[in-house]
């Protein structure tokens, strides 16, 4: 841009001259010709300058330019792995001692059997140091299983307890679960005779602050004390759900922990009249999802159970599915009850779950008269009844689920949580005698929904009668998996789990198995005996904190 200047005549050029320099023109009158020349020169320089300016402006406005950037300082950090920890819920707990005194205090009942197994690691077991149930440090306390971090290390544990105490009778089993910050518990009841306790164990060395969300048939429950529940490090806290929501028939609890992670379980006990007829421990369910699966539901003594349901306060022995829609939108849910054994009858029905409420429906509902049979699901059944002849119900067309193992698929348009309650009762009139009014031996179990597993899962089988491992494939493709007993010298069992189907294996009590190739499968471990029922689902290890990208400023 210096050219335009240099083409200027002297008078307009002193840009490059000193002010006091030779500048005669400013003081002497300019000749007319000179003036014309200067105007001409101005036109030339002006044209050039304007042209350049316009070109630059057009270039800036129209030409895209690349950007030169410095690279951020990036480090990908693989967090150090932590020890694997599992916590068993511990012995059954009662509020108040056997005489009914000290109703504010919790007491442990007996001692559970704990079976634990480990792959590639040294198992360290310990009792939780403190418990509200007064069992801290004893074998009745929640057992903390720990294995040092290592590649391929797996840890699993299960407990079972055959409770027989005043007001407590029944078989209960539970998985030793990994501490978590968010646990969904579906089960329990707070109606008359039903007691549900919330067991919170904090095995970490950081105090935890637990908040509860409780939903019921009427919607979300708001009560004082549901937030800021302190669970000190190494402590088990026992709370009665009735303290928050007395009389609630179908509670669903979401436990969130800040600080130390916790293991949360519900413990339900049932007293019908004066008879203690059921204890169960309800472990964590799968997180809210559009597709929930509850495997391994065992219907046992269907006839006796149906008969018992005629007794006063025995109506809830009918197997039922409990579904909660914790979100803010009503959920339309399709429930499919699929028998494991081909030829058995299943069913399918639609229900609507209003937002924030819990709905409980008997499993043998026939809302749309559609029945399902055989493993593989989806097929429409013939409609004839495979159930018992005698019925406590009113309609002869009513479906009756026969003895066997069933899987419940819950598909929804909104995230839901679900679980199935089943009860067994020994048929006290099996010899077709008069209907007894005495309470038959009975027990209930909550079948939680099973989360999808990873490739390799270690399964601990509790020392309980007639244990069965039920493996469900909720996916749309068949899965070929291997189940290997951890006992010495055993041969892997090849399992083909069809899409939407379930495979069950009867296993030995107290054994342990390694399931490989089981990505996406769900596993429940159930045990049953006449008048005894217990179940839990196997959860995958919680995902360890993955690598994280850190930018240092």
């Amino acid at each position, binding site marked *: 841009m210096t050219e*335009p*200047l240099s083409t200027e005549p002297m*008078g*307009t*050029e*002193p*840009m490059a*001259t*000193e*002010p006091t*320099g030779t*500048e005669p023109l400013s003081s002497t009158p300019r000749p007319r010709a000179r003036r014309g020349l200067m105007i001409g020169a*101005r*036109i030339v*320089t*002006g044209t050039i*300058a*304007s042209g350049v*300016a*316009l070109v*630059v*402006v057009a270039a*800036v*406005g129209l*030409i*895209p*330019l*690349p*950007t*030169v*950037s*410095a*690279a*951020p*300082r*990036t*480090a990908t*950090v*693989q*967090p*150090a*792995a*932590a*020890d694997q920890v599992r916590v068993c819920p511990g012995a059954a707990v009662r509020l108040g001692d056997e005489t009914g005194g000290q109703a504010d205090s919790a007491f442990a009942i007996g001692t559970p059997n704990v079976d634990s197994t480990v792959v590639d690691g040294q198992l360290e077991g310990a009792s939780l140091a403190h418990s509200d149930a007064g069992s801290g440090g004893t074998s009745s306390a929640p057992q903390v299983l720990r294995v040092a971090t290592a590649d391929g290390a797996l840890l699993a544990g299960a407990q079972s307890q055959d409770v027989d105490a005043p007001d407590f009778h029944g078989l209960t089993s539970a998985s030793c679960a990994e501490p978590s*910050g968010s646990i969904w518990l579906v089960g329990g009841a707070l109606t008359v005779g039903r007691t549900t306790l919330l067991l919170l164990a904090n095995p*970490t060395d*950081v105090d935890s602050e637990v908040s509860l969300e409780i939903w019921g048939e009427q919607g979300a429950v708001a009560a004082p004390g549901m937030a800021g529940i302190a669970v000190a*490090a190494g402590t088990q806290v026992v709370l009665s759900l009735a303290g928050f929501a007395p009389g609630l028939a179908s509670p669903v609890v979401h436990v969130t922990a*800040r*600080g130390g*992670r916790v293991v949360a379980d519900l413990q339900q006990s049932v007293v019908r009249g004066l008879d203690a007829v059921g204890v169960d421990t309800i472990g964590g369910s799968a997180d809210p999802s559009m597709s929930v699966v509850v495997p391994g539901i065992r219907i046992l003594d269907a006839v006796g159970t149906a008969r018992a349901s005629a007794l006063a306060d025995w109506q809830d022995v009918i197997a039922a599915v409990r579904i909660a829609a914790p979100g803010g939108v009503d959920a339309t849910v399709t429930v499919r009850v699929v028998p494991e054994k081909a030829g058995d009858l299943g069913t399918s029905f639609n229900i609507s779950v209003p937002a924030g409420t819990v709905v409980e429906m008997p499993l043998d509902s026939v809302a749309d008269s559609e029945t399902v049979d055989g493993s593989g699901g989806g097929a429409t059944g013939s409609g004839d009844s495979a159930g018992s002849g005698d019925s406590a119900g009113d309609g002869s067309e009513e479906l009756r689920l026969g003895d066997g193992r069933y899987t419940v698929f819950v598909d929804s348009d909104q995230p839901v949580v679900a679980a199935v309650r089943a009860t067994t009762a020994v048929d006290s009139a099996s010899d077709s005698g008069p209907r007894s009014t005495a309470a038959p031996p009975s027990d209930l179990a909550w079948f939680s929904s099973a989360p999808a597993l990873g490739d390799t899962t270690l399964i601990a089988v509790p020392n309980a009668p007639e244990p069965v491992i039920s493996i469900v494939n909720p996916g749309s493709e068949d899965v070929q998996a291997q189940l290997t007993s951890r006992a010495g010298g055993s041969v892997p069992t090849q399992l083909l789990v069809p899409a939407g189907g379930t495979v069950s294996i009867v296993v030995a009590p107290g054994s342990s198995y390694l399931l490989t190739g089981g990505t996406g499968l769900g596993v429940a471990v159930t045990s049953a005996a006449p008048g005894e029922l217990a179940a839990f689902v196997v959860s995958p290890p919680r995902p*360890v*904190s993955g*690598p*994280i*990208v*850190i*930018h*240092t*400023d």
Partner: protein
Amino acid sequence: MPRVTAILVTRDGEAPAESALAAQTRRPEDVIVVTAGTRLVRSTAALPAGSADDWLWFLPGDAAPDPEALARLLHAVEVAPSVVIAGPKLVDPEDRSLLRSFGESVTGFGATVALADDELDQSQHDSHDDVLGVVLAGMLVRRPTWDALGGPDEGLPTIDAGLDLSIRARLAGSRVVRVPSARVAISGGAEDFVRRRPLTASGRERARRHAQLHRRLVYAPSIAVPLHWLSLLPLAVLRSLGLLIGKRPGTIPAQFAATFAAIFDGSVLPARAALRRTRRVGWTALASLRIPNDVVRERRATARDLAHARSGAPDLVRAGFFPGGFAVTAVAAVFGLALSVHLLGARALAGGALRPLSATPGGLWAQFGWGDRDGLGLTGPADPFGAVVATLGTLTPWNPSFSLVVLWLVAPPIAALGAWWCATRLSTRAWPPVLAALLWAIAPPFLAALSDGRPAAVMVHVLLPWLVLAVLEAPRSWSAAGAAGLLGAAVAACSPVLLPALAVAVVVWSFAHPRAILRVLSILLPGLVLGAPLFAAQFARGTLFGLLADPGPVVAFPAPSGWQLLLGFPSADSEGWHAVVQSMGLPVALGTFLPIGALAVLAAVVLLSTFLPGSARAIPATVIGLAGLATAVIAAHLEPATSGASAVGIWPGSGLSLYWAGLVGAAVVAMNALGRASAVVGLVVLAGAAVVVGPMVAGIVTGGGQVVAGDGRTLPAIVAAEAVADPQLGTLVLRSQDDGSLAASVERGSGDGLEDFSTLALTRPAASVEQSSLAELAGNLASRGGYNPAPALDQFGIEFVVLAPQVGTDVATAAIRDRVAEALDAQSALEPVGDTERGSLWRYSAHQPTGGLEGPSGPALGILAGQTAVFVFTLLLALPTDRRRRRVAGGAQAEDDAEDAFGSDSFETDEFGDDRD
């Protein structure tokens, strides 16, 4: 009958005075011609011993004495036997009524005073013939006295030789007179007598000072000599400062040269001995012949007036500050108040790139220089911007952060005043500067900087017109050059990306003024000195690219399009036009074209200015504007610094300020040439610009800007409280990033203030060892796992961990934040403190306060001292000490000199004082 020997001192062997001597009515008996450089004592020693009535007459070889000169000199000494030295009236050979020298005296402090110096001879000095001394040239001296005194002092080769000889003669009890009737014309200065070559200006300065110091050491009582000797160097320093303030930096070397010559002056002791030997009377005998102090002051005042009267043409009549400048400043003040009314009462500002400042001015300055730059042990030089921030904060020492509030409030009026003043250099009319000030106050980059909280860009916009003003004046004024140096350093510190354009402009300007080339080039010096350590550090690391990074916090902004840059908008969402258009349901493209149309008038006027009279000013203004535009475009496409996961561009606003300055400058020239039409055209231009910034102004006034009143903290209050006792405590700050990553940094004490940010750290190409350790710590703290953070927390002295609050609703950011919060909650080494508005806080209770950092090293202090020296030097130079000579007149146009360009009379006026020789 006296016998006179004339001694002619000649430089080239020729002595035209010889013929003049022949024409004397009383001819000297002998004439000796000696070559300049010969010691006079030696030439007289060769003479045959004479009687008491022998006289020596010293004359330059080319002197032209009046025919009666010697006769009258002799007459004067004959009537008074006590007179041993007589001096003639030394006059100019061309104009014999112009006095060159006619007697000398000294002040109370011993400085030489010429009794007559280049003044018309109106016989004003003729009445007093008794003087303290006369110069050697033309001196008639009695031979025995000459011999007894030993001739001139060897320590005084030229200057003061005659004065010293006269003083010694007087101390010996004799008299010295000047003879008004005897005139001798000499060419050249009297002080060049006996020299081979005339003294240069600086040589004369040095010799004069040296002569004074030499005489001081010789005349002083013995007991005071060591004190005088010790005071030489301190005095030289003090005098140098005075010379700086007096805008005579060129004479400082001469000062020191003379001082060192005096310190090692071996001729003092012989001279003292000679004086002691010949002295007969006390110094009090001379007191009446000295110049009293009040007379000294009077003479100095007269000399100053004379200098002013001599320098340059009379001032041009310019637009007066009243009413135009005042009105526009007042309007801008009201405008600024309206923009920042929601900030009234604030003690600090927050938002955008604003941060609080250190609580004390000491803290502000402490970070400057060499030190820890990232809280992790990266030592390096501070950003030059730190000095600007520290200077700013020192203006409100009770609460440095408050200075930013003040800046936000007063920036529009100061910017407008600067633009108005600067425009008076480009236009002699009243209206164009007013227009310039208004356009400058509503410049889009300025408003965007105010709205988006860019303190550096605001500073640039405020300082830029003052810088241009000072640079324009610099060729003729040391004061302006000094001010330009300081302003240029500040502007470049605030926006390093402007430096290339500014430096090129200054260099071109210096070539345009070859006589003042060094003075103009010296404008660059303070900025270069200020930035040199950072340059060296970046150069050594191989990341010169990082020098362009904006100082201060790295804050991302949406990249502007080319059209937005052309409109002056530095960031894509600052204009507000697209939002307005969308809210009115109009096509989106209108959001681009409406403001372009509104600004087209200004563009047309700028292009027109290149055709109008004055285009030699308009074209450089346009070129500067294009340079600013280019700077802005380049800045928008360079991302030298990183913040978290993303590289962040250079704020183009400062380049756009320069762009806008060029546009306004060219428009002013056009207005000046348009005559009566300028009012209408100017109003249309102003209206167009106002429309362009309309949505933005509305957004700021309604509180839509990012700048809000802050509480002076960047970290939760509990951290600040702890930092009082433990100023080195570290706080790990974790910020979740949009891409699901996590940014980690360590802040010391109560948090990073505006002065604590370092481009050296933020442009680092790769993580340091400490940063890698920090990343590992942060990554594990952000994860559940078996990591034990205690060693790393101890290593970095971290007591608190802050997880910044969620900004926006981004899912990935929220997910990573939840993960980190959960992991920190589960970390047994940390205890949760709670959630604050500045983020969730955890505390590492096992933290042990560490001692303070070690102080800066010796070399670092040396660098700092050097920088300080340069800035003190420049500051003293910039102090406007000369009397202002600006003539304030009404708004009327004085004369139509529109055809003249930059070098014309319109640039004669000098706000800073005129130092031209």
